[in-house]
């Protein structure tokens, strides 16, 4: 067993959600199979987030759906392909060990209510509402950009389940802080920030947009400074627990988010660059940093940069 897996210093709380380790697999990354979740959990992740699930199965967009861009970034428009919440719930029914956060995507309250029902008999650590996917019509960011709708959805979801509910926000065409505010007022338990940023790449030889959907989401190293800013802004304005996400690929990236105000962090694109040992590497780096700097708990570091 990895040394970091049994080290209680790495334990963290996202509100009432307790994690053994602060590193979480982000939604959409390797997130469609229970066997893979098990593997990633045993590789060091404190929890895994599923691919965002919809009511019905979705095929997603044609390829190319993912490729990398200059500056260690990734561009994707997978189109939220997923087996649908009912199929998925069945698949993870047998889960015993893995702390699974179920990501959900929908257009109206009822969608979310329906999906949560599917998981009634399943061990779910938390739900994450995807209010931020930037490249699929009528869901994700188009919902997140409407704080009133967000309020309705969060209220409905909160009254449908006792499991903690996280809202995942991103940067859209309104002020994302209004979305955070709406979610908080409606009783959300935590915020994940941020999702990918709307972006595009054109191939100069063929003169075409490369993604089949033309526009997609930018992730990885390029978005880190923007994500850190968002975590800092949210934590400066709200008392809500935050999960930081965006461009984290090494322990110091993770610490940067924690100092900005995150209680845990999610790792996405870095899995494509560094493979799944990235969880253990980051956990080890965080531990070493804590020892060197005299911290015994993650929460002692959360938001320290706000002092200045």
């Amino acid at each position, binding site marked *: 067993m990895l040394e970091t897996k049994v080290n209680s210093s790495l334990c963290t709380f996202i509100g009432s959600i307790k994690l053994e380790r602060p590193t979480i697999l982000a939604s959409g990354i390797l*997130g469609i199979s229970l066997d893979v979740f098990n593997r990633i959990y045993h590789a060091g992740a404190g929890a895994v987030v599923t*691919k965002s699930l919809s009511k019905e*199965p979705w095929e*997603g967009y044609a*390829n*190319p759906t993912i490729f990398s861009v200059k500056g260690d970034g990734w561009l994707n428009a997978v189109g939220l392909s*997923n087996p*649908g919440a009912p199929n998925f719930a069945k698949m993870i029914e047998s889960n015993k060990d893995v702390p699974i956060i179920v990501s959900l995507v929908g257009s109206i309250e009822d969608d979310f209510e329906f999906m949560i029902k599917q998981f009634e008999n399943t061990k779910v650590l938390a739900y994450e509402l995807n209010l931020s996917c930037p490249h699929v019509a009528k869901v994700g960011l188009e919902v997140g950009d409407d704080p009133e709708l967000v309020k309705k959805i969060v209220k409905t979801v909160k009254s449908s389940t006792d499991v903690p509910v996280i809202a995942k926000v991103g940067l859209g065409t309104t002020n994302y802080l209004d979305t955070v505010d709406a979610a908080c007022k409606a009783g959300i338990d935590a915020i994940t920030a941020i999702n990918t940023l709307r972006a595009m790449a054109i191939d100069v030889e*063929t003169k075409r947009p490369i993604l089949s959907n033309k526009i997609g989401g930018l992730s990885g190293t390029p978005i880190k400074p923007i994500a850190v800013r968002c975590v800092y802004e949210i934590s400066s304005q709200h008392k809500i627990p935050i999960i930081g996400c965006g461009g984290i690929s090494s322990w110091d990236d993770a610490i940067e988010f924690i100092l900005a105000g995150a209680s845990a962090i999610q790792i996405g694109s870095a899995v494509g660059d560094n493979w799944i040992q990235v969880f253990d590497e980051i956990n080890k780096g965080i531990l070493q940093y804590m020892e060197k700097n005299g911290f015994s708990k993650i929460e002692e570091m959360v938001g320290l940069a706000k002092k200045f």
Partner: protein
Amino acid sequence: MQRNSNHPTICKIEKVVDETPTVRTLTFSDDVLSNVLPGQFAMVWIPGVNELPMSVMVSEEKGKAAFTIRKYGEASTALYNVKVGEPIGIRGPYGNSFRIKEGKLLLVGGGTGLVPLMRLLTGIKPSDDVTLIMGAKTQSEVFFEDYANKLLDHNTHQVIVATEDGSYGQSGLVTDVMDNLCQNTKFDAVYTCGPELMMSKVVKIATLKEMFVQASLERMMKCGVGICGSCCVNDDLVCKDGTIFDGKHLLSKSEFGHTHRNKAGILEAY
């Protein structure tokens, strides 16, 4: 423009060769892909249509590589139809490669599954004794027979063709041929690529006879780099942990030879 192996690089098709009425080989210049390890694949962008995983085929010319495509659905048919001078995008190479052993080697391939086996043949020792069993539905769909014989010119070798309808070579499935062969012969290693049900059988036969065996798997692929998860077989990601796996490992996986995932990620039976 600096090359980024995870971003499509544009190549122009320089030569198109019809292998059979449904299979074509497209050749292009690319130093990186001309030097891949046997078994590695690329993600191939057909601009405006789709992007597909394709095993990298050997080209006899230095600095060139090729793809050998069976026209099937929309995407593969579009790639099949790319003309000389037209662009495709490639990224990669991705995946691991065959562990090449020495001695008596058995290769069992079906259809375009022959592609990685052809490159494997370029990596063996002159002292190896090689048997290649290649399968096709019917005579007109047989390809790479001459090319395999040519690559094996300096080896003790035999190339056995099996057609399902018996119109050429031996009649029946490659696995029948293999079964027969293995009654009397113990191979030092078996390599297989082709339809998964075929590979599953090859792996079982070889394992029963306690022969080292490796198979190259195909799955729905989007990223090719271990991000999207679409290519998983139980807890393995075919693009990253494979595409080549040891037989023993595969037999421990409930999905191998039984199910694969569709575009929505739902498990479907073979």
